């Protein structure tokens, strides 16, 4: 029995230790910590939420603050998943509720929060089908027809996936299965979730468990789907994504001759940043919410600042895209609002 097991769950030292062992990729210690807590009588749900999920949030912050590398973040996540798996293997609950399908939307790779949700729902008596990260819409719908669940829990952590989340929600509901949405991608308070036709939204795993335990299925099951989403500006931006990015790259190279010396990695990274600008712009146009874009700019600005990149770089990036969209007033307005968020 490890020393950690003698500490209560709310001991901050415990969380620090867990962060350290997952950051070191020490699977054995991480699994030992959570199983010892379980042996001490701490409910598995509390370990998942108060230790694993909270620590994972800190991992994200550490990456954003440039204190951890992408690789370390991935390694820590992998260890967290192993710890979660160890908890799951030691808890067995007889299904007493319906059947739920849990999936991350197409292109969404943050699987750990949904895996925690899967375990929480299983512990609450649901029969759970966990489809994991990056589930293409057609695979999700095929699964629905094959298993006939009572609800789909769909996670979207990044707003750029909202159009695909919308397609998935629409298809699920057309297949007669109500959808509960979750994840930061659906905006503050899940406001885009309703817009996209989801039947419910939950901020986190615990709220989702509560929401599904009562008043489910929702009464307005046959409510008409959300109104028309996406307009001609959205279509233009998405269809011209490659041109928007490559033209932006060309203009940047003209303005900053040093870019010509970039190697492929550096060029790829810059192109990726441009792609993010275009993708978040498209998502903002799709749901008609400027906040989708301005939140992205604020977040990116923080991430870049932590890496010593001056804010002007981001502003120049926005400008090169904006210059190409003069005839598109909504897109121009969104880009201008974004630029206004960047400190001088």
């Amino acid at each position, binding site marked *: 029995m490890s020393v950690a097991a003698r500490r209560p769950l709310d001991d901050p030292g415990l969380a620090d230790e867990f962060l*350290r062992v997952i*950051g*070191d*990729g*020490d*699977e*054995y210690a991480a699994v030992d910590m959570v199983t010892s807590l379980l042996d001490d009588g701490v409910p598995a749900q509390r370990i998942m939420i108060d230790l694993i999920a909270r620590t994972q949030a800190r991992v994200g912050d550490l990456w954003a603050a*440039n*204190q951890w*590398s*992408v*690789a*370390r973040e*991935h*390694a820590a*996540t*992998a260890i967290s998943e192993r710890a979660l798996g160890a908890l799951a293997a030691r808890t067995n609950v007889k299904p007493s509720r319906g059947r739920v399908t849990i999936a991350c939307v*197409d*292109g969404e*790779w943050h699987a750990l929060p949904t895996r925690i949700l899967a375990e929480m729902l299983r512990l609450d008596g649901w029969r759970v089908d966990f489809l994991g*990260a*990056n589930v*293409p819409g*057609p*695979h999700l719908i095929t699964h*629905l*027809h*094959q298993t*006939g669940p009572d609800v789909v829990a769909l996670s979207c952590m990044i707003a750029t996936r909202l159009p695909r989340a919308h397609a998935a929600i629409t298809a699920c509901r*057309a*297949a*007669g*299965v109500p959808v509960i949405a979750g994840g930061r991608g659906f905006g503050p308070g899940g406001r885009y979730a309703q817009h996209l036709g989801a039947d419910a939204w939950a901020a986190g795993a615990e709220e989702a468990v509560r929401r599904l335990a009562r008043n489910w299925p929702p009464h307005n099951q046959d409510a008409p789907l959300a109104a028309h989403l996406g307009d001609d500006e959205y279509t233009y931006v998405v269809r011209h*994504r*490659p041109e928007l*990015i*490559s033209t932006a*790259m060309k203009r*940047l190279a003209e303005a*900053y001759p*040093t*870019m010509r010396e*970039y190697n*492929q*990695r*550096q060029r*790829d*990274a*810059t*192109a990726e*940043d*441009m792609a993010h600008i275009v993708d978040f712009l498209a998502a903002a146009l799709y749901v008609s919410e400027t906040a989708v874009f301005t939140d992205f700019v604020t977040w990116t600005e923080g991430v*870049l600042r932590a*890496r*010593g*990149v*001056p804010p*002007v*770089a981001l502003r*120049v990036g926005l400008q090169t895209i904006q210059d190409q969209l003069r005839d598109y007033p909504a897109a121009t307005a969104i880009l201008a609002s974004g630029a206004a968020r960047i400190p001088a």
Partner: protein
Amino acid sequence: MTAQSPASAGERLTDGPAPALLRAALDAASEAVVLCGSADDTIVLVNAAAQALVPGLAAGATAAEGPLPGLAGEESFTSRYRGRDLQGHRRALGDDHYAWYLRDRTEEVARADALRAERARAAFLADAGRRLSSSLHQGRCLRITAELAVAHLADAALVVLPAEHRQSQWVRLIAGGTLEEGTLREQSLTSVPGLVEALGGFPPIPSRWLDASQAPEWLLPGAFGPIGALLVTPLPGNAEPAGALILARRGTGATFTPDDEILARVFAARAGAALSAAGLYRDQVDTTAVLQADLLPPELPRPEGIELSGSYQAARGSLRIGGDFYDVFGPTDDSPETVIALGDVCGQGPEAAVLTGKVRQTLRALRLVDAAPATMLRVLNRALLESGRRHRFVTMVVGSVSRADHGRVRLELATGGHPAPLVLRDDGTVEEVPVSGTLIGAFARTVVRPAEVELAPGELCLLYSDGLTEARGGPSGDELFGEARLHDALTECRGLPGAATLERVRQLVSDWVHGGIHDDIAMLAVRAPARTPLSLRNGDRTTSPFAIDARRPDRRRPRS
């Protein structure tokens, strides 16, 4: 009523018989008119139309005491008299008289009722069509059928499926209750009047011939109360019934009218079609699942001292099986080595999948006779050529993995026309394993040049299919992911567990193609497990294998 009436202009009606002209004019009108005196509500005149409509009305009587109590009112009324729907409007005729104008609305009401019923039926059937067509899952179709039946047709509904293995599956819903499911023995079916006939494909027996009191106790819980009427309708399917729908109405007076029975049959036709489509789909899924089971990526063994991870992504829209595959054969009593294989057969879809199944089976057999990787490829080449089917070739890597001293892992690898495996070294460099070989199954003579590599703890060897490096995307949407990006991605994954490395590469490629991949991608990683970082136990973070942050290159950004 405040409208000016013709008699208000000053002409006075006396208490005596009405002037003949007035009577003649009113009798000629098609509207029924009853003239009354205001003072004592006495009927002064009943015209011919009123006489025909309400024969009991006569001049001299008090209006309210006649056969139409509505005449006592002050404004208007509707009432039913001798099977007719009547509507009366009262109008003042000067100060001393008023008249009731009566209209026969029987047909109008009947038409309105019929229209409303028709609309409700249409809405119900539209709703039913939409909801029943939404799902191909039989369980859901059953539930939807019960829900719709209770919402529109009856107080309780039971859907019974034909017996399979002498057991019949059922779903039951009672208005206001929750759905129940269960099975019952085939012989119990006979106790429900009309059920055996319905499941036997015979026309439904009219509800009035079914004795609701004969229904067995298990049909509905006691709390439902006495069943007033029972209706058992077959759910027509693919030339044989998909099931039967049992409807029940509560209370002694309840009935199912012939219209109700027709509606139930129309609904049952739709529900039956949906259920049988779901049944067909389920059969297909079951068949596919059996076939797929051998073709899907295998569960990886966990041999001691060797870390194995695999990843397989089928091209979008396929059956999740295709031309790429990997397989791992764990150590046996005779040979301590673990054999790994990853390959790509030409083509996609089920045909390619069948060939991968054959290739995997051949490898499994070869592994049992302890063949070396190069030998395996040569034998496989001859086997494919002799199978007689042209244009069936495969590129692949085969390796045998064993443990060496000091936590190291040794691999003997051979390829046939496949991208060379990559090795991620401890310092982050990526090397190509120097192997080469020709396509398998294409030429009578194969050239296979095997090679050996050793992995130190923490080092990793990646086998992959060309779907990875040939994924098209990037900013232009048409650029290959390429080997350079793969090398960079691996370098970034230095020190990561194998599974996390594969996940990272998958993620990068998925972002690169910005949408669904168009070719299968298979990856298999062999890693020598990293030793427990003892130095970390005392919290010295700088020596962590992941603590590369300080050396991390700056973001590549235009600087002003």
